[in-house]
């Protein structure tokens, strides 16, 4: 009997081992499939876009349709660049960050300090729900509140507001999670020494959790960098560089959309996307570095 058990056990072991190896191969295979789109996309962007990237591309504004058409007809590269989009994106990012970071961080601190309270739970839940709102709806809201209500016209401010609302829940959540990972003893030690509450926050909690906070902020920024839909209804776009926040402004994803829509300039979508991707990916990598350094 024992021998038969051993035989069964052995053959079962074999089949189990085969199964184990097969699953491992499957997992690796599917994982490779999972990341294949990113490789394909980046390759495509580079293949079609690298020729257009130059110093001019970053410094100049786009050509008009006719200039693009003549360049195409002559077999040349389309002249000009996306400077208005870059400055517009930067302008709106700074404004959105100025609005979202203080509110988000402070709210995150509030949630961290009041874990069980009804108000805190309500805020957390609402914040999570807010995160799920599609960006087009946020654009709609910003149109009603800012374009119609505040600036009486399409403006960079409206665009920033929609982006800020998008970033807010992410910053709130990452702030709370970061602070939760700080050992409570540090905070309690400071309080025990009689340090006033606000100083504990400013001089102990925030510096200690700084890299975690920064990661959350950078991720929030990189997430909204590529948003197009809300900006169509708020910032509208612009052919020139504009740094006035009460006026319409361009943005890189908006420019991509405009190029896509213009029959003569459609070739520019690849290089613009490449640049946008490069910025977003760099931000992602930088924030990962920061997060890794603290671990």
């Amino acid at each position, binding site marked *: 009997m024992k021998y038969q058990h051993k035989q069964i056990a052995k053959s079962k072991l074999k089949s189990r081992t085969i199964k184990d190896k097969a699953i491992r191969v499957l997992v690796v295979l599917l994982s490779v499939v999972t990341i294949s789109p990113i490789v394909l996309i980046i390759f495509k962007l580079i293949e079609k876009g690298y020729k257009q990237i130059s110093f001019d591309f970053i410094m100049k504004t786009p050509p008009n349709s006719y200039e693009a058409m003549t360049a195409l007809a002559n077999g040349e590269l389309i002249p000009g660049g996306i400077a208005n989009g870059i400055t517009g994106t*930067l302008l709106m990012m700074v404004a959105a960050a100025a609005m979202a970071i203080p509110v988000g961080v402070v709210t995150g601190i509030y949630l961290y300090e009041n874990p069980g309270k009804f108000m805190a739970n309500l805020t957390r839940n609402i914040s999570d729900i807010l995160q799920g709102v599609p960006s087009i709806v946020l654009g709609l809201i910003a149109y009603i509140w800012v374009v119609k209500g505040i600036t009486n016209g399409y403006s960079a401010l409206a665009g920033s507001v929609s982006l800020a609302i998008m970033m807010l829940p992410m910053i709130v959540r990452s702030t709370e999670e970061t602070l939760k990972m700080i050992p409570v003893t540090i905070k309690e030690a400071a309080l025990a020494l009689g340090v006033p509450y606000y100083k504990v926050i400013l001089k102990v909690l925030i510096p200690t959790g700084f890299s975690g906070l920064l990661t959350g902020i950078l991720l929030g920024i990189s997430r909204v960098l590529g948003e197009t839909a809300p900006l169509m209804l708020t910032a509208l*776009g612009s052919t020139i560089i504009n740094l006035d926040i009460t006026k319409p402004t361009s943005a890189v994803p908006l420019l991509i959309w405009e190029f896509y*829509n213009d029959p003569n300039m459609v070739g520019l979508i690849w290089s613009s996307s490449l640049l946008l991707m490069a910025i977003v990916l760099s931000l992602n990598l930088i924030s990962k570095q920061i997060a890794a350094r603290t671990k």
Partner: protein
Amino acid sequence: MKQLVIFMMAVFVLYSCGNKSNKNESGQPASKITLTAAGATFPMPYYNMVFSQYTQTTGTQLTYGGIGSGGGIRSLTDKVIDFGATDAFLDDSAMIKMPAEIVHIPTVLGAVVIAYNLPGVDSLKLSNQLLEDIFMGNVKKWNDPKIKNNNPGLNLPDLAITVVVRSDGSGTTHIFSDYMTKISKAWAEKVGVGKSLQWPVGMGAKGNPGVAGTISQTQGAIGYIGSEYAFAQKIQTAKIQNSAGNYIAPTIASVSAAAQAEIPADTRIMLTNPSAAGAYPISGFTWIILYKEQNYNKRSKDQALATVKFLDWLVSEQAQAEAEKVHYSPLPAGTAEKAKAILRTVTFDGQPLLN
């Protein structure tokens, strides 16, 4: 970390300062006026070109958002732009709904072409009956006898017809459906005219480029797009039979011929299915709309003056001559005069701005 942030801010400031000095190539003092406009995508290649020319010569900055004709009308209703652009003029009932009286300024003529993708099949001729059959789904294949009979000698393949239409509201759709309503009773009953329709058949794509891109990448596809899209992407266009019975290809001349009709003083007229012998039947004006009384919402007189001055330039010979470069047709002389006359009725506090 802090140093990095300061460094990046310094770079940003230097960058934008450096770019600011690049902007003003004319040497004129930079005027502080910015004009904001939004609306139709149909004339965008033309507007794109002339707007930047105007900025280079006068320094007045111009922003245009191609959010569609309906968006232009709505933005003007909300008073968040200086002027709007639409391929579909507002009829009387729509004009009453506006907060204040508006005027229409025609700016350029364009053609809606019937584009198709059949390699090796050039100069396809589509009669009105065929247009109805194809776009209402009665004829489903390219080698259908009806198409063959109309195009003897063409090698039509055994391929399904893929109809492509606009999924978003559009002035291009408006012009196309206006023509279809005029030439097809079935269409007038079942579908009608408008910027957005309930299409009997066809798949939707977003914007002119969506439709153009779909057609150019799909063998057997057919759809209606603004002419510049067909030219720029080298998509074949069909010849359409006009009311005089001639098969006309969309060219600058044939589109101009469509505007030979009697244009009313307020220029609100659809140019589809005209009677002129050499006219391309699916042509149309595109308009700019603005408030007749420019003192609203704390607008400054300078802003209003800059607006009408720009529009006056837009309908002048100088700007109109540029239209052909991007395959649009300039306004006929009579229409341009009417446009200028309308501009001179635009007032600020009751006083006309231009004389």
